[in-house]
């Protein structure tokens, strides 16, 4: 966990997160799925300090009351549409184009899943969709497996951010392969955003300590017993982890190293 430099590409002079030319002061990107009510969602988003938050695209429900878009607008939060639920590149590309038309943003969180059981990304469909969307002018933030080779491939084809999972979506299992996340961060020239699987504040802090540029989470907050309190915890965890990364942690060692001097000890006769 020591010795690697911060990914400078994701840091401008003011230390803000930059994705596809857009700047964000907060490094906590939130999702909106699972919140028990729009009011709780509004309070949790405010407590999180987030400036960028995901929504899904679904068929219009004529009976729906209140829109998540109203909540984001009232809170002054930029909307990040996702392609959740898409199994093929074709589905994901169409969903992204509909989101761009409906929400007037080029940003997209590209998510192409392989099956409903694991919700793990399908790497082949993901790469295909990413290529098409980059060609079409989208600012693509690609949700991917914690695979350093795939992450690099996504960066090289033009993704504005690469978002490896910590563990399966909604699982709360945290970061199962910290070593891979470190490898991805070390070789990246675009922001790396830890996305999916985080369960509690220490998971978010670890992501930032490993060198990630930001964290994206939803379930850990929206399904916590107190979503608003957990949102505040996540905000502090991301900031703490970021600062710890910048500060440079001490190396781990097998034995103790005294923090008080040995010199000048008064030795009794024992």
């Amino acid at each position, binding site marked *: 966990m020591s010795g690697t430099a911060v990914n400078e590409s994701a840091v401008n002079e003011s230390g803000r997160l930059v994705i596809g030319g857009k700047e964000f002061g907060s490094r906590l990107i939130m*999702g*909106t*799925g*699972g*919140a028990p009510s729009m009011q709780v*969602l509004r309070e949790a988003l405010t407590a999180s300090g987030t400036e960028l938050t*995901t*929504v*899904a*695209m*679904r*068929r*219009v*429900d*004529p009976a*729906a009351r209140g*829109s*998540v*878009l109203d909540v984001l607008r009232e809170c002054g939060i930029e*909307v*990040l*549409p*996702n392609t*959740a639920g898409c199994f093929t590149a*074709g589905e994901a590309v*169409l*969903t992204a*184009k*509909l*989101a761009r*038309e*409906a*929400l007037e943003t080029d940003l997209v*969180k590209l*998510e192409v899943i392989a099956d409903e059981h694991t919700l793990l990304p399908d790497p082949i469909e993901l790469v295909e969709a990413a290529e098409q969307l980059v060609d079409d002018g989208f600012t693509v933030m690609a949700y991917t497996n914690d695979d350093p080779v795939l992450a690099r491939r996504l960066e090289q084809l033009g993704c504005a951010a690469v978002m490896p999972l910590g563990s399966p979506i909604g699982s709360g299992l945290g970061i199962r392969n910290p070593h891979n996340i470190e490898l991805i961060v070390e070789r990246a020239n675009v922001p790396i955003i830890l996305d999916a699987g985080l369960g509690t504040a220490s998971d978010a802090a670890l992501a930032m300590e490993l060198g990630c540029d930001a964290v*994206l989470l*939803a379930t850990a907050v929206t399904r916590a017993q107190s979503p608003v309190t957990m949102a505040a915890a996540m905000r502090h965890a991301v900031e703490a982890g970021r600062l710890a990364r910048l500060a440079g942690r001490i190396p781990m060692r097998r034995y103790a190293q005294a923090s008080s001097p040995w010199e000048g000890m008064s030795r009794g006769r024992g």
Partner: protein
Amino acid sequence: MKVIVNGEARELPEGASVAEVVATVTTAASGVAAALNDEVVRRSEWDATTVRDADRLEVLTAVQGG
């Protein structure tokens, strides 16, 4: 004519425009997009785009997710 709107078959008058069909499912002035047979129809083209028999129209908006 019969048109599939968000997965449900609907009987609609011949020559109906995308704008008219969208209006049957939502009155939202923004935040909505439509795809006719898997091709996005820009909002500015909804009035001028005619729906044909057996067409599939998808009308989407943003919901909580991710």
